[in-house]
């Protein structure tokens, strides 16, 4: 059930990417999809009544949440901010040249 709510967030982002005509709305949709995928991976590694995976004297190792998805999601979050900055800079350049964010009007091939 909780995974399906996560899929709903992903599908909202997919809808935004496919339907919207504003180029910044497409960037927003991609960001929403990234959030949903990161949340899904973290949900896969959750354990009931788990504790953070940090070794101390008092905590037993059997209660740790899964550290592997967390490490990979940490990588994915940092990469997502870099790609967001790249997309936004492309949007700014496109707006300087075409004076619009509408993707139906951006169709000249002349560089």
């Amino acid at each position, binding site marked *: 059930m909780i995974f399906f709510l996560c899929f709903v967030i992903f599908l909202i982002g997919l809808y935004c990417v496919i339907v919207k005509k504003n180029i910044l709305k497409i960037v927003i949709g991609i960001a*929403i999809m990234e959030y949903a995928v990161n949340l899904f991976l973290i949900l896969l590694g959750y354990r009931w009544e788990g504790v953070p995976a940090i070794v101390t004297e008092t905590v037993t190792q059997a209660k740790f949440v899964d550290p592997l998805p967390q490490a990979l999601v940490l990588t994915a979050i940092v990469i997502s901010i870099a790609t967001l900055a790249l997309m936004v800079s492309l949007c700014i350049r496109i707006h300087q040249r075409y004076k*619009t964010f509408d993707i139906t009007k951006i169709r000249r091939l002349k560089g």
Partner: protein
Amino acid sequence: MLPLYLLLFLMILGSLVAVHTRTLLSAVISLSLVGLVLCVTFLYLQTPDIAITQIIVEIVALVILIRAVATGKEVSDIKGKKEVFSLVAVIAFIVIFGYFAYQALTFIEFPKFGYPLMRVSQFYVEEGLKKTGSANLITSVVLGFRAYDTLGEVTVLFAAVLGTLVILRGVGRKK
């Protein structure tokens, strides 16, 4: 369990507002709301490292997106002509995606929520402190066991920053 559902519903609500609102600035603010709720969700799921990273990245993303919104004078939503085709495509996507998600969640061996598969990471949990000397197991995975992944991440980050600088550079090459 109930707070998790509430947080997820708040995320769905925020993303719906971000998709459907008319002004771009409020869409960006709603997107930032979704990111901050995601940060709280990570804290609830016992992953403080991801929560710290998420909140920093979220603030930076908000600043970058507001810079992009401030570029254009037009902030209203753009109406397209071929809405019907897009809606059909979206419905087809949703049906196919839902079918495969249902198959994956029911028939294939899939971990239930709260009972993670610990095939690989059992070794990391047992040997992490001894082999890498880091009490935080996430650090030991990122910088010790999976250090080549981190090298790839840094490469991608470098390429993206370089691309951003090249695109936004003011002076172009003379012809």
